[in-house]
């Protein structure tokens, strides 16, 4: 029988985490083990993977075939895109954004990281901290993933040595000083043999921390949202015009920051008019308060002209209202960034246009050094960029609020999302 009880499942929390890694570092093995050991791989899926592995002439069951869903991926044996996988333990439900780890997939790693509460970074115990570790950690820092778990893998190949573990741990923490990681946890594992993945390892009695699954189940995620600065981007205006709700005018949206309570005084941006919250409505009822990431409908005491793209905030802590914005930008498209080029911008529920005014520097994601002399920004490049928008945006620094600090850049000719930006730059590199 299953370890789930019908009632217990209703109280679970959701944790989204990302993994980055390439073919050889055991990432697929690790995910395969997490899924398999939590009974999230079904027999027909396993059968299909077994059949495909044999057809390919593989010696072992290739668990990567579970996540590599597209024909081209299976043919070429590579992961092209972000794959989402799901599993649950009796404590939590998990969403894995599984991304390839090579430098040419930086944009996929950035995508996977954008919604993650936690990141798993794998280090091969034989190699220690490498360029790849550096890159993955930088992305975790850039995207401000609240929790980073460093899995020192392949401990079986270094005789489960505590010395090796401690050395790598020190090596990483020295390097991580250059980054702004909020919380780092270290776990020595062997994904292949299962040491410290789900069950505690008999081979590493010196390790006193929890297994990877234990860490994933117990990370504190309640504080991952900004609960201080009230931000409510208006998504849609609800006007039923029915007999029963004739004068109803509600502002539908998702709380992006802070806590809104009935009776709170709010300021509407950009008009700067103020009013009081009459009600916070959900289906057939009302709430006393709402916080991120709740989707609610707010009604106000006063009749004010408010539409999509406006934002409800509070007087005591306003966002920055500005047309000049500096962002760290990851470029997502083959067509390079055009300096002085014009693009469409989406920020919260607001649509504006912008002109790229200046590229200040690019970042070498392997060494974290600034590249000041090459300012051409192409696919997978990360650069500090200054842009000016046609209308003001209501922004917070990305390290203060991941929702109001994020924007995307769209090519107006192709309608493609070509760049993504994180507002502010001081959270990236020390002295940056």
């Amino acid at each position, binding site marked *: 029988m*299953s370890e789930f009880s019908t009632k217990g499942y209703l109280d*679970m929390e959701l944790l989204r985490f990302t993994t980055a890694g390439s073919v050889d570092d055991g990432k697929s093995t690790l995910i395969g083990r997490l899924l398999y050991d939590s009974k999230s791989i079904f027999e027909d899926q396993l059968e299909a993977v077994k059949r495909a592995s044999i057809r390919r002439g593989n010696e072992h069951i290739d668990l990567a075939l579970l996540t590599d*869903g597209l024909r081209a991926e299976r043919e070429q044996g590579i992961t092209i895109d972000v794959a989402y996988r799901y599993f649950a333990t009796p404590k939590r439900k998990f969403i894995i954004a599984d991304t390839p780890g090579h430098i040419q997939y930086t944009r996929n790693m950035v995508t996977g990281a954008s919604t993650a509460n936690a990141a798993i970074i794998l280090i091969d115990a034989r190699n220690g901290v490498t360029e790849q570790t550096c890159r993955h950690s930088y992305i975790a820092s850039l995207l401000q993933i609240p929790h980073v778990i460093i899995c020192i893998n392949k401990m079986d190949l270094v005789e489960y040595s505590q010395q090796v573990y401690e050395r790598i741990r020190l090596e990483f923490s020295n390097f991580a000083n250059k980054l702004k990681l909020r919380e780092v946890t270290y776990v020595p594992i062997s994904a292949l043999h299962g040491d410290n993945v789900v069950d505690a390892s008999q081979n590493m009695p010196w390790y006193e921390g929890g297994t990877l699954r234990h860490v994933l189940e117990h990370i504190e995620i309640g504080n991952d949202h900004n609960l201080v600065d009230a931000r409510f981007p208006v998504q849609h205006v609800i006007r039923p015009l029915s007999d029963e709700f004739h004068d109803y005018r509600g502002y539908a949206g998702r709380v992006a920051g802070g806590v809104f309570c009935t009776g709170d005084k709010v300021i509407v941006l950009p008009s700067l008019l103020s009013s009081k919250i009459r009600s916070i*409505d959900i289906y057939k009822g009302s709430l006393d308060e709402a916080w991120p990431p709740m*989707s609610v409908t707010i009604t106000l005491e006063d009749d004010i002209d408010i539409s999509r793209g406006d934002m409800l905030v509070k007087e005591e802590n306003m966002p920055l209202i500005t047309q000049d914005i500096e962002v760290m930008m990851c470029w997502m498209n083959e067509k390079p960034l055009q300096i002085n080029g014009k693009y469409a911008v989406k920020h919260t529920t607001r649509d504006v246009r912008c002109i790229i005014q200046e590229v200040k520097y690019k970042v070498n994601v392997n060494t974290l050094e600034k590249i000041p002399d090459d300012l051409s920004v192409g696919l997978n490049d990360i650069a500090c960029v200054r842009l000016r928008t046609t209308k003001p945006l209501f922004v917070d620094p990305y390290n203060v609020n991941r929702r109001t600090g994020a924007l995307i850049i*769209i090519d107006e000719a192709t*309608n*493609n999302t070509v760049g993504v930006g994180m507002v502010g730059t001081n959270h990236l590199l020390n002295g940056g």
Partner: protein
Amino acid sequence: MKNKFTLTHLEELEYESIYVIREVAAQFERPVLLFSGGKDSIVMTHLAVKAFWPGKLPFPLLHIDTGHNFEETIVYRDNLVKKLGAQLIVGSVQESIDTGRVIEEKGATASRNILQTTTLLDTIEKYKFDAAMGGGRRDEEKARAKERFFSHRDEFGQWDPKNQRPELWNIFNGRKNQGEHFRVFPISNWTEMDVWQYIMKEEIELPEIYFTHQREVFNRDGVWLAKAPFMTLKDNEHYETKTVRCRTIGDISCTGLTLSAANNIEEIIDEIAATRVTERGGRADDMRSEAAMEDRKKEGYF
């Protein structure tokens, strides 16, 4: 200790889906919700109702009708539409066959599953829908695991999985050119278990065939299929009466039935928690090849 400002996973998924559905209403001129009568589209409709309350649904429901339905699904559909005061549009595969748009498959394993794509695309074109919301979930199938919330379709309705738009945070890019449309999947991040738990929590009514009943069935390649006038038996097959229920609902010709005595949601959840086969394991349409779903999706399938 739990922080006061935490949410359960079902609350978080619900808020995410409501956000996506509202985003569709805000970004598109003529959205539509694809309604099959299955549990996923029922949950999606429920979420849409919640998203716009006290307003009405700001878009119609579209049912692509293969003509090969479980009767109970149609009864359920018509009751729901009446209760919600929603507009229902039906795209008929039979009509696509009659007008020569598609040719009916032949043989004992013939199915109208693939034919639906043409009917769907024709209906989208006819009504000039620019966004069609579907109940697809990423945990269902490996090609679906790569799907975006906002999935761009070209003027032929095709999906280009290798060239999808990056989708970050909760910022959705629904910009498109004339003639193109979007498929939107508001419950992308839900698993089968989440859907059932939510149905229990919200006390959502379902078509009766999800619960145990006696039915005349026959076994084909290990899958139990229902007796229906348009199904042809092969030589080695015969009808027998079994206690069954549906785990998923699709076209009757390719929906496998589960031998089950589960009579309420709690029992269904216990059954699913203990099962070791995916829900699409019983779907003949997915077994045609390793990339059956990807190939259908590229052409414009749900």
